[in-house]
């Protein structure tokens, strides 16, 4: 559950989940919707996958991401989104984000 809270604490990751509510999307299309570097987005997606909030499935040469939210997690997403909750941490660079995820 700690991983879920960590994943939902970031506004970009919350926006990814909101985007995926429309249906499964390829990683490239998700990345194109955000003004962040591709490695940063990969790290965000990895954190979401690790928390069990999204599932990745390879189809041909593309990796599709789709929602895997329970009702409780869905409610938590709406709640954190409504309150605009965010972890009080300095913004990490993509390199540090990846390093943190690898730990």
């Amino acid at each position: 559950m700690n991983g879920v809270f960590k994943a939902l604490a970031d506004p970009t990751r919350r926006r990814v989940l909101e985007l995926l509510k429309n249906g499964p999307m390829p990683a490239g299309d998700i990345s194109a919707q955000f003004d962040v570097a591709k490695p940063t987005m990969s790290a965000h997606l990895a954190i979401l996958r690790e928390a069990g909030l999204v599932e990745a499935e390879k189809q041909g040469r593309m990796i599709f991401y789709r929602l895997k939210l329970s009702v409780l997690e869905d409610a938590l997403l709406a709640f954190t989104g409504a309150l605009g909750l965010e972890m009080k941490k300095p913004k990490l660079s993509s390199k540090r984000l990846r390093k943190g995820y690898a730990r």
Partner: protein
Amino acid sequence: MSTSNEIRRGIWTALALIAAAIVLKRMLAGGIISGDTSQRLIQMAIGAVLVLTGNLVPKRLRKMSEDNCEPSRRQSLQRFAGWAFVLAGIAYIVVWALAPVDTALTVGMCVVGAATLLVLVPCLWLALKRRSAGRVHS
């Protein structure tokens, strides 16, 4: 969630319900609780099972390559079904906790029945649509 985990979870839930029923029966026989309370508690446990089951409905994913339904449609149906069952389960628990037994029996059944219908109708609609589309193509 893997199939073996799901089976294990189902077995544990069933065992917990049976254990709760046995405990309540003993308490009833010992005069600790009334028949009314016993019935309310077991119905509330059933409501809790509905909440737990509904909560996990959107997490049950099929491989996109093996799915014969449009993935985005399946996803929205599963999310809707999950929410419908969770809310119905919560309503069922509240009704059995607060309303008179006769009322709780009727209202509880109506709530769960309505949720089931709300979920079944779009599923059947989708299945019929797909079937008719298949006929047109063939």
